[in-house]
Each structure stands twice: as C-alpha cells, then as structure tokens.
C-alpha cells in the first residue's frame, strides 16, 4: 500500500495531539495506554483518555443490529462509522481544539482491519473515515497470534458472536472462528503499517520494556512542555 496523503491533527494546526493504540485483542494495548495515561497525568499534563461512550441513540441501534444478527458487512461498517463519528464530533475534536493530549484505545484502523476482513472494499472504508484526521502517533502492538489468542482464551472464555467473527462463517465453533478471525485481523494490521506509519511495538516482551519505548517515542514526537494543565 502506498503512503496515505491524509493529515494528522498537528499537520492540520490543532493545538491538541491524538495518540492511538491499535492491535488485536490480547495484544496488551489497553494496559499500555493506561500506563501512558498515568505517566502523563503525573507530569500534570492536559490529558484525556477517550473511552468508547457512544451516544444512546447509536448504541441502541447497534445493539439491536447485533442481537438480531441483521448486520451485513456494509451495515456493520456504517453503524460503527456512525458511532465513531459521534464520538469524533462530540468528544475528540473539541478536546483537540482545547489543546489536550487525547489517548484513544483503538482508532479508525480498527475499522479498516475489521471491515475489510468482512469483505468491504478497503478503498471505500478508508474514504468513509477520511472525515477523521490521522493520529499524531499510532502504536501497533504486535505479538505472535498464539500469544494473544492464549491471553484472551485463558482469561475470558465467553466470546461474543461478532467479536469472534461468527458472521463470516469461518467456522461453526466459536473459539475456532475467533482464532481464524484474529489471524486475518493481524494480517490486515500488518499491511497498514507503511500506509499509515504505524509504530510497531513488539508486544511479546515485558510490559515495562514496551512502556519505556512508548514513552520515549511519545516524548520525541510531542513537546510535552506545551501541555501543562495550568497554562
């Protein structure tokens, strides 16, 4: 894939910065972004951790679609894009305009991976999301597939239908389907590395080692002095 021409928040002149973590389930990205948040907070910086709090309306439609299993690859993609847009317009953009460092556990790359694995056109999905600027920094936590699978399958045996990609019809066995689905997602992520300049972190090393690399990289790209809370 060619490098994208889309711009980051910093390139678009926003005072804030957006940092995203991506990777398959069980890659440890949520732990890493939590530690990153703690580190930034302890320095007294304007930091916000964006959780996925969808508006009630979009949430209720998504829930119905999932429960009744009436979602196709296209409507699955569109309802999640709606949800993303809602969060983007209501939460992310205002904070970035107010000069915050916004941390996102997953960003649009999750949708690119998930939707194209489901069969949507990669080009269509990318354009669908191009209302949203690129993060200033995206970490891609990559572990061998069996490592991330083991983390999930040991800790949380109750897999959800769509999370396991059961709608793709890869296997009737939910655990088997989950494994196949995650494998495809991992490949899709790997393909996006150059296209979007994702920073790959080897997620198969000690947590604190990964965190050290993340912090170092972040401090290089974002001038943290400019984000003090009392400014």
């Amino acid at each position, binding site marked *: 894939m060619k490098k994208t021409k889309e711009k980051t928040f910093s390139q678009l002149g926003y005072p804030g910065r957006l940092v995203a973590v991506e990777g398959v389930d069980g890659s440890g990205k949520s732990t890493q972004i939590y530690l990153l948040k703690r580190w930034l907070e302890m320095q007294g910086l304007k930091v916000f951790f964006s959780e996925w709090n969808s508006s009630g*309306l*979009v949430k209720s*439609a998504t829930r119905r679609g999932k429960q009744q299993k009436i979602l*196709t690859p296209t409507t699955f993609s569109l*309802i999640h894009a709606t949800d993303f847009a809602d969060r*983007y*317009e209501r939460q992310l953009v205002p904070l970035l305009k107010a000069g915050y460092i916004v941390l996102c556990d997953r960003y649009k790359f999750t949708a690119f991976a998930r939707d194209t694995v489901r*069969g949507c056109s990669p080009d269509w999905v990318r354009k669908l999301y191009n*209302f949203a600027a690129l993060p200033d920094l995206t970490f891609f936590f990559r572990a061998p597939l069996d490592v991330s699978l083991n983390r999930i399958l040991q800790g949380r045996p109750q897999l959800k239908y769509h999370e396991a990609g059961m709608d793709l019809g890869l296997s009737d066995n939910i655990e088997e389907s989950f494994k196949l689905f995650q494998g495809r997602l991992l490949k899709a992520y790997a393909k996006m590395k150059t296209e979007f300049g994702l920073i790959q972190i080897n997620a198969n090393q000690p947590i604190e080692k990964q965190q050290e690399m993340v912090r170092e990289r972040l401090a290089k790209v974002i001038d943290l002095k400019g984000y003090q809370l009392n400014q």
Partner: protein
Amino acid sequence: MAAKRNIASKVKPNKKFLGYDLPGVKARELTGKLIVIEGADGSGRSTQIKLLVDWLEAKGYATTQVGLKRSSLASEELERAKNGNILNRTTLSLFYATDFADQLENIIIPSLRAGFIVLADRYIYTLMARDLVRGLDDKWVHNLYSIALRPDAVFYLKLSPEKLIQRNFMKNHTLDYWESGMDLGLSKDMFDSFVQYQKLLSDKFDDMRKTFDFTIVDSDQSVDSLNQELRDHTKKIIN
C-alpha cells in the same frame, strides 16, 4: 474470493452498483427493476407512487415500496434524533446511510432478485443533497453512497418553493422543522428558511443531474396527467 468470479457468465449485467460492489451480492442476479421517485415534501411523491403501484399490480407486476427512515436497523433512533437534534452532521449523515444500506441489502436487493419492481420514495439523491447543503465534502458524500445500486429510472418531481409551500399548507397547515432546514440557521423565520432551503436543495439536484441520470418531471400539473407521464416513462423500462 476472487477465483469465484471467473465462473461469471457472459450475460451483460443490467444492474450495477454506482461504485463498489456490496460484499456477497451479484448484480447480474437482480432481475427486477428499481424505480426512484425524488422530490421535496409536497411534490406529490407518495400519491404518484400509490397510483403507479395500482397500475403495475393491475398489469400483474409485483411491487415493493421503500423509503427513507424505514429500516428495522436505524429508523426508530433516527426519528428520535430528529426530534432532539442531538447528533452532529457527519454522525447524522452516516446514520441515514446506515438506514439506507439496511434497506438496500434487506429489502431492495432481495426484491430485485425475486423479480419485483421496487418503488423507492426517495433514494440516495435526497440524502446526498441534504448532506451537501450542510457543507459535507462532495467527494466524501459520493463515496459514502457509491455502494448504492444504480436505479433503472429516477423521476425527479420538480416544483417551485413557492408552490411547495402552498401544497404543504394544504396538507398540514404547518411547515416541518427539517424540511425547512431550520438546523442550518438560514433564517429565524421558518417561512423564509423553507424557501431558501428548498432552493438550495433544488440547486443540488440540478448539479447532480450532471453525474446521475434523472428524468425531470414538472409536478405543476394535475395528479392524473402527472401519473400518465410517469407511466409512459415506466413502460419503457418494464417492457
């Protein structure tokens, strides 16, 4: 996945997607016809569709009717969003697109596959025009709806804003907040806003004619003569 396509027969598909094929749908299997009626509220769309359905069914054609905000996936929430005006424009646009895609895949395509004539009370063009007058990016909007099927015919019922107003008052004695484009802040006066907004939409439809194939039908005529005109156009498609 790509390998399967090689078996495709040489029959020329009469149905096409505007841009991207929907996953799992073979356009050439869609043997029915898709007829779209576009036009503002008060332009006579629903009356004309009713008459077309009667006429088609009398001739032995099976029909299906679709319209905006009628999906089982998103219609309920869209109605609530409209009443509260709480979603931003990109979000609302995508929500409408979700509603559209749900009907496209669950109603329009299965009906066309079964050889039905699908009558759509508005289609992507209204949705696109609404997005465009709200300042959403032209390319983005076109990409969003490039998953739609190209209709066999699009009839755009055209009526001046002044006449539309009169028809709306005849029907409801009131103007609708959204049909007046009040969210755009064109004017605090609903009457003025309605006239300005309908003019903007009508300009967008004129622009879109350059890209899409519309048949413009003057709606300023009697119900019967207008329907006759639509039947004449329809005959060319169904025979």
